[in-house]
């Protein structure tokens, strides 16, 4: 430990972003060189260059963009439904103590039920329609949002709530002035967690059920032996995932910036 601290104080370390770039470049180089050197069969892991050209080829087809759009649309619709249901039910359950006591155990019981258990049911009900996947997405993301909103409502200052009640605020006013502002950061955390889970289930549904989207194209590429295309699509899915994470995290930070809990720092 001493040695490291000394190193860092004597000559300045490279900035983090540069190291990150070097790491990325190193990773790409490994992806390129390992198959070229014959360490891994090129049929299993094509060089990075081959993946890129497969990606470029994909990008010229309308089907690729269509699939990307379908994936994003399914994700967005599912997440919106889960958010709306999670927030409304969360505030309702969290705001009424009797209801909360009655539902705690059930929520803890239902939450660990794996969403993929619903795949056969979804297929029977909707076939390979996008609604099959939507069912999975909504189910999985809903729990993430609900649990966070419940935490948030629980976090409401009892004094603030009592005050609101003593001024005879109506239930809706109470929600707007007391519960919602406290719960908002938690809602945003729920959004971030839900967004990631929704994407996972969206892709899973497409992959397993065969509803339209990038996941189905990956399955098609796999069965037809287009290995480079399959990798290219996986990279695209990964980039979509990175984008979702970055946006959700930015949204979470933004909502926290004007949150009342930050106000105390302003003189």
């Amino acid at each position, binding site marked *: 430990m*001493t040695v490291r601290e000394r190193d860092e*104080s*004597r*000559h*300045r370390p490279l900035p983090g972003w540069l190291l990150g770039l070097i790491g990325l470049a190193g990773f790409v180089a490994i992806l390129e060189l390992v198959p070229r050197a014959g360490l891994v069969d090129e049929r299993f892991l094509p060089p990075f260059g081959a993946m890129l050209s497969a990606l470029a080829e994909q990008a010229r087809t309308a089907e690729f963009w269509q699939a990307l759009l379908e994936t994003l649309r399914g994700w967005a619709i599912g997440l919106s439904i889960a958010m709306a249901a999670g927030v409304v039910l969360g505030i309702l359950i969290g705001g009424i103590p009797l209801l909360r006591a009655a539902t705690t155990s059930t929520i803890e019981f239902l939450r660990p039920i794996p969403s993929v258990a619903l795949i056969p049911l979804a297929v029977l009900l909707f076939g390979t329609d996008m609604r099959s996947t939507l069912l999975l997405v909504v189910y999985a993301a809903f729990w993430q949002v609900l649990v966070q909103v419940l935490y948030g409502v629980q976090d409401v200052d009892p004094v603030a709530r009592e005050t609101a009640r003593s001024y005879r605020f109506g239930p809706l006013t109470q929600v707007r002035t007391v519960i919602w502002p406290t719960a908002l950061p938690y809602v945003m955390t729920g959004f971030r967690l839900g967004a990631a889970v929704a994407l996972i289930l969206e892709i899973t549904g497409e992959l397993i059920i065969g509803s339209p989207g990038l996941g189905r194209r990956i399955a098609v590429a796999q069965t037809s032996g287009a290995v480079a295309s399959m990798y290219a699509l996986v990279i695209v899915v990964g980039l979509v995932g990175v984008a979702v994470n970055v946006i959700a995290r930015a949204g979470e930070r933004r909502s926290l910036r004007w949150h009342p809990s930050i106000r105390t720092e302003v003189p």
Partner: protein
Amino acid sequence: MTTTPIGAAARPEAPTALLDVRDLRKVYGGGSRSVEAVRNLTFSIAPGELVCIVGPSGAGKTTLLRCVAGLLDTTSGEVVLEGEKVTGPPRGMAVVFQEYGRSLFPWMTVRQNVELPLKEKKVPKAERRRLVEQALEAVGLADVHNAHPWQLSGGMQQRVAIARAVAYEPRILLMDEPFAAVDAQTRADLEDLVRTLWRRLGVTVLFVTHDIDESVYLGQRVIVLSNSPTVVLEEVAVDLPDDRDQLTTRSLPRFAELRAHVYELIQRAKRGDRPVG
């Protein structure tokens, strides 16, 4: 007694010093944005001494202590403990930090916390048990062996940290504003505890504080620091009787004089006065 001039203490001779800090300088960062925290510190501590270091807030007290403890590298100058240059945390040194709540392992019981450093020193089991029990007894915590630190009050947690340091049988004990975060009554008790342990065990103590009263009450010698970049402003010998207690010692006229003197020094330090030469 009141005629004794207040001034520089007789510095112990170099060969007999346990701890020697020579021309210590510490600059944080590099390039144009560097900050000089400590400019030049030289002092030494004889075996068995209890020395307090006091300075205005932001005087680089913690930087100094971390350099002495070997937790921080010096930019230039050296810290020598028992004739060996300190390059990392040395053997035979124990540190009590200000943040008692954060210096104890919360996943261990009180006993395990005290015992862990002894295990690392490969002290045999029977001896270990004896040391742990003695140390906890000495700090007045004989009956909380199996509690977790967070179940105790702040003062008791700091007692555990002191017990851990004492059980380690260090030759030098560093204390970094250990009582800054406990309430006033607990603080008086803990000050007396430090005096008692020091007299009983004969351990050398370097006690860093920002509290003028505390430094005079505890120390045989008080080293007053300037503001940052830090140098030694003055060393004050505390010629109070060795038997001290909160009531009589603090009401001695000599205590008031010394206190006033250190207070003045601190005020000068805050104004940015530096020693001449």
